[in-house]
């Protein structure tokens, strides 16, 4: 009886085109999320080593290990544990950190803006540097800039990030006093602006506090420089090869024959650089959530990366698990956004 109405409604559910693609991808999200939660769940439960025993410390009292196990829910069968875990997740309960004595969700929410501000600026720097070097290299293939840029790309992928961060601090802070001491997001003497977005730069501008703005930028300079230098490599390579291929192509050939100036040619070639670079930016953004961890630690940035590292040193399992979960979900979301953007930009891609 309701079938008639049901059929009318189903007819409106999109399956083709942009809306259909979006719907299908969002639906595919669910099993992926399930998978991610499974992986993070089993991360702590199935590996060797008993979390309850480690938490209890050395030579505990007789009943302590059992009490901890009961509190963590480790004495129940594994599927019940998983259901409890999923139930907690859906309610937003990520467990508690025994080190900070606060819920992990609170800790993460407090520290996440720091990481995202750093990653965003770092990515902007990396893209700027990468596009600059890649375009210059492609305009004169085989030339000095091209070869230097390629070598730089290789080197940037080879140098360890924590080491480069230490060198940046050494040369720009200790020897030359250009950068402020690496002690967090604001110089110690400046009051933070009221929190609107969580981004120190944006918030201080919104509050009209230019001293805080300059302070925040100064503190950002060191880690952003490190991240930009390290991550510009793949962007340089991709930009250079895409631009080079475009410049050798028929369209540019014809345009040059028509007598168009070189700058216009470069602009036309740049259009074909955009799709792969945007995909790459997406991948880098997802990568940097976990990849900026060490830079954060060296610069004492108080972001979620440093939080995760601290939790490892303190053997605090709930934050580690939560961090892996958050990083995984964030990656998935970013990949989805990249796919959508790609579809919007490149008219040839039809999904």
């Amino acid at each position: 009886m309701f079938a008639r109405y049901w059929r009318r409604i189903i007819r409106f559910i999109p399956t083709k085109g942009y809306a259909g693609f979006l719907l299908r991808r969002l639906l595919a999200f669910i099993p992926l999320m399930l998978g991610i939660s499974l992986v993070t769940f089993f991360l702590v439960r199935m590996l060797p080593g008993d979390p309850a025993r480690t938490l209890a410390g050395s030579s505990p009292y007789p009943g302590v290990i059992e009490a901890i196990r009961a509190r963590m829910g480790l004495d129940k069968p594994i599927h019940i544990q998983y259901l409890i875990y999923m139930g907690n997740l859906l309610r937003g309960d990520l467990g508690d950190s025994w080190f900070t004595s606060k819920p992990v969700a609170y800790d993460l929410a407090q520290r996440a803006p720091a990481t995202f501000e750093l990653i965003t600026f770092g990515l902007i720097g990396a893209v700027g540097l990468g596009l600059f070097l890649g375009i210059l290299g492609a305009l004169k293939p085989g030339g000095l800039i091209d070869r230097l840029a390629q070598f730089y790309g290789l080197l940037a992928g080879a140098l360890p990030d924590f080491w480069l961060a230490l060198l940046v601090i050494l040369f720009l802070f200790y020897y030359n006093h250009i950068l402020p001491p690496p002690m967090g997001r604001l110089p110690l003497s400046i009051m933070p602006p009221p929190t609107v977005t969580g981004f120190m730069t944006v918030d201080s501008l919104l509050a009209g506090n230019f001293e805080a703005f300059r302070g925040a930028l100064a503190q950002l300079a060191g880690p952003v420089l490190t991240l930009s230098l390290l991550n510009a490599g793949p962007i340089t390579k991709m930009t250079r090869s895409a631009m080079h291929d475009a410049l050798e192509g028929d369209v540019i050939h014809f345009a040059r024959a028509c007598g168009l100036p070189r700058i216009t040619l470069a602009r036309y070639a740049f259009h074909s650089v955009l799709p792969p670079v945007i995909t790459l930016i997406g991948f880098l953004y997802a990568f940097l959530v976990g990849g900026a961890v060490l830079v954060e630690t060296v610069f004492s940035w108080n972001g979620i990366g440093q939080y995760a590292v601290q939790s490892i040193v303190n053997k605090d399992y709930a934050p580690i698990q939560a961090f892996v979960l958050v990083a995984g979900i964030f990656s998935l979301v970013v990949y989805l956004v990249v796919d959508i953007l790609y579809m919007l930009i490149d008219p040839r891609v039809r999904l």
Partner: protein
Amino acid sequence: MDRIKRFLRYLIENPGALLGFALIIIYLVMVFFAPLIAPYDPVTPTSEFRSPPSRQHLFGTDPSGLDVFSRTIYAARTDLVIGLTGTLLSMLVGIPLGLVVGYYRGWAVSLILRLADLLQAFPVFVLAMAIVAVAGASATNVILVIGLLNSPVYIRLVRSEVLTFRERPVMEAAKCVGNSNARILRHYLFPNNIEAALVQASVNVGWAILLTASLSFIGAGVPVPTPEWGSMVSIGAAMMITGEWWAAFFPGVAIGFCVLGFALFGDAIRVLVNPERRS
């Protein structure tokens, strides 16, 4: 003889490849001849603490009085062995799985692909960090983690090769003649589809070494007394604040050159194996 001449000429024409080969040879020498090259024992403290680079201590000493130069050389053993073994493990897991996943169809295959996807969804360092933190920091665990986290790369690589190779007439002929699936996998698919994976292996060793050093830097890798470049940087980092740069600087340089060497080596192998494929 002719091959050797061609190879040498390639090296001379491509300074990048020459640098890569030279670096790898230098590091292999460090691995095998460490006791002959290193002036001091890597775990026995000397009487000078925190002393800058000098004639006696080429790279200076660290807060415990250990000679940085000797430790850097001995650390090559730790890092390279872990990197090479881990990459080998990921290939041993990833290549056969890739062959199977490319050749067969079905729900089991989709499941394996899904798992590989899932593994790749996480940022590698985050997952590695978490696994080693829970399982305990040791060289073995680092090797296992590298093997696990790098295998999806090989699965995908080999799978895409097999997917195209599977449609060739030679495969159809092999099936018609009556070869069993196992024989096809071993004699037809395996030799022809692992080239990309072998080329990728060299770059992967570099990444594995970076991962090892990063894990050891935060204390989730090789435990402290064993010389390892990442943990050496961590020890030297505390000294950097007072301007004593040498304990953290030189191990980092060692990491950089090592990874660079493997990357250049991988590039060179890629070109040597197929001259049409230049970057």
